[in-house]
């Protein structure tokens, strides 16, 4: 028997047209953002990928050089490249765990308050509003100068000053220290995470005789691992692109101790006019950040606990084995 193809029912045709109109309306509504994203983000990113294989100094025609920029980078001809990677990675992998611990501790303290929660939450969040921009970095530089506020205070109590920004062994730690007060944003997210932990878990723990530390270790921390994971990823991505603080506070010195990757990239692009080479550096940074991010994602199976997730089921199976 031949299959008879029937025309769609008129009502079905109207529904399909309505769905298309809805889709069109949706695309039109997001078109301002879409146009901006394509024109100002995707487009320039693709152009920079092309530039990475060229020699371009803004004034001369673009000259294709193939892999020359990457060869220069990986054969050690860039005096600053490997040092900048080492400095940046050291900064991220030391600073970010400290940052998370501070944000989490602050969140737990604020969450445990019976009175004044809003006041303390606001006060601790304020530095995050100021951010790590140029003005704040200038302020930090003035605070940590040889005869700045901190050393003046130390001298007042009979201690000798410290070369916070001019001692190569201390400068990077000073830059890290200056970046820590902006934990407020992460703190807010941790507070939200804490509020999502079911009270029943703590009640059960109390019944089982758990003390405060045990409650934190066995309940709070595991339940907060998704937030910690998020904070770690965002901190990794942001930290690898650190620029303003070290650039303003130390300019990359002393003795390249704070010569971050982005400072080298900025110098190559805007001071030395090597746009092609700087683009190659930018794409290498992208690959490095991608690699680290994937590593953290891969590791999340081992330490991130999602309630009712496949991941937690997998862990249960492993435990039974």
């Amino acid at each position, binding site marked *: 028997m031949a299959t008879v193809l029937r025309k769609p029912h008129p009502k079905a045709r109207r529904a399909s047209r309505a769905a298309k109109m809805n889709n069109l309306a949706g695309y039109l*509504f997001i*078109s301002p953002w879409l146009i901006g994203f394509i024109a100002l983000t995707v487009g320039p990113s693709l152009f920079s990928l092309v530039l990475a294989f060229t020699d371009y*100094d*803004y*004034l001369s025609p673009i000259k294709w050089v193939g892999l020359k920029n990457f060869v220069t980078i990986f054969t050690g001809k860039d005096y600053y490249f490997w040092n900048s990677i080492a400095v940046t990675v050291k900064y991220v992998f030391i600073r970010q765990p400290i940052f998370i611990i501070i944000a989490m501790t602050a969140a737990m303290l604020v969450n445990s308050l019976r009175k004044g929660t809003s006041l303390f939450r606001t006060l601790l969040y304020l530095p995050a509003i100021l951010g790590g921009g140029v003005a704040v970095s200038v302020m930090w530089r003035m605070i940590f100068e040889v005869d700045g506020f901190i050393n003046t205070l130390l001298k007042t109590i009979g201690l000798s000053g410290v070369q916070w920004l001019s001692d190569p062994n201390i400068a990077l730690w000073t830059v890290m220290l200056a970046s820590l007060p902006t934990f407020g944003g992460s703190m807010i997210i941790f507070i939200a995470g804490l509020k999502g932990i079911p009270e029943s878990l703590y009640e059960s723990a109390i019944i089982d005789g758990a003390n405060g530390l045990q409650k934190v270790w066995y309940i709070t921390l595991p339940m907060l691992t998704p937030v910690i994971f998020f904070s770690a990823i965002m901190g990794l991505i942001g930290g690898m692109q650190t620029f303003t603080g070290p650039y303003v506070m130390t300019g990359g010195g002393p*003795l390249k101790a704070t010569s971050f990757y982005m400072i080298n990239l900025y110098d190559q692009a805007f*001071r*030395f006019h090597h746009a092609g080479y700087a683009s190659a550096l930018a794409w290498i940074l992208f690959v490095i950040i991608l690699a680290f991010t994937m590593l953290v994602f891969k590791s999340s199976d081992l330490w991130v606990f999602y309630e009712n997730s496949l991941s937690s089921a997998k862990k249960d199976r492993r435990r039974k084995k």
Partner: protein
Amino acid sequence: MKKLRFLALLMAAMMAFTAIAGCTASAPAGTTQPTAATVAPTTATTAEPTVEPTPKPQEKVTLMFSWWGNDARHAATNAAVDFWNKANPNIQIQTSPAGWDGYSDKLLTELSAGTAPDIFQISTNDIANFAQKGQLLDLTPYMDTLFVSYDSILKTLYVEDNKNYALSTGISVPCLTYNKTILDKLGIAPPTDDETFDSLLEKCKAATKDTNGDGKIDVWGIEDPTANTDFTSLVVTQYGTTMFAPDGKSSKFDDPKLIAAYKMLAGFNDAGVTPKPGEVTVKEGSSAFQSGYTAFGFQALSAYGGSAGSSPDELDVAAFPIVAGQPEMRVVSGSVPMAIYSKGAHTEQALQFLAWFLTNADSATAQGAMARGVFPSKAQRDVMAAKSTTDRIITQEMRVADFFSTLKTNGVMLPAPVNITEWSKIYLDTNNEYAYKKLTIEQFCQKIKELGDPILAQ
């Protein structure tokens, strides 16, 4: 329902249209449309500049003039521009003064986009680079006409391939500045114009003291003299060599004469008369001398006016020291240069304004102050001479400038190599290693040669 859907679609379409319209800015009437920033419109060219024919009397042109500086320079320059605009209704100048930060970046962007100002102040580090890429007008044909009264010695500066691409806005000889208050307090005789480096070292030793009794030195003789290539290059010249090869493609940091010059300067650090790295806080854009930590300093004459102006009666200036035992060698350098955009629409008018600004007495009168070093023409200096009886700083600056103009100056400042900015970063970072005693002065010179030459050769 249909009406609602139609209204929603209409709103969405209007939003999309607004976004598209916002992305494509239309030029206001009467101005040129800037080219896209990603386009590199130029090719390196050595073609002769095309100069616009003289406009008809009723045709009005407007030129853009930009520079960087402090408030005093802005005020002086704007005053001169106002004078010019009143006297030349057909050639109007619009000004765009700025601070130093970001100036070079902005200029590079404007050159790349084809929207650079007609006349602009330019960093000495950028002249070779921009000239090579055909961005600067060749001023050589006009040296004996429009710029005939411009100081001949300054015409030897900023020359690329035997062509003048930029002109210094003033005489800015390197000087030895000193703090009279500190020297008086310590009973040290002020330096003379014939000061040698040996006698300067002795004076620096006498000036390095703990003046407040806390057991720590708080006044030093001088800042590390190896750190600033503007001054080390002069010392190197006195030793009979130069820092760079004539073609700018390599340095001479393996030349025994240059190493001897650096060893002499390193003697100041070895004697302990310079503050160690991080020992003092120097304000941004300033120096240890200007911040009051050292009794002596090396400074360009054009910068001296600004720092001395804030410390009345405290500072004075003498000629740059000479190296005992070497043939007398003095070098004149220039103040901040100015150039003309080769692709501007009205280069002839731009030339007329620049010539007036740099050589005409009315320009000096209108400026009322030497905001860029001592004026580069005699007519302008005569105007200042009349003022010098009442202005201490002008007196000091004119004295030093006159001193140099009477000398048989036999040192020529070679133009900076094309990649000087990148080379300078290597220099400063390696000098830092020397300052932190990670390198001896000989190792420092060797490392500069190894790391810096590949950059110069690019």
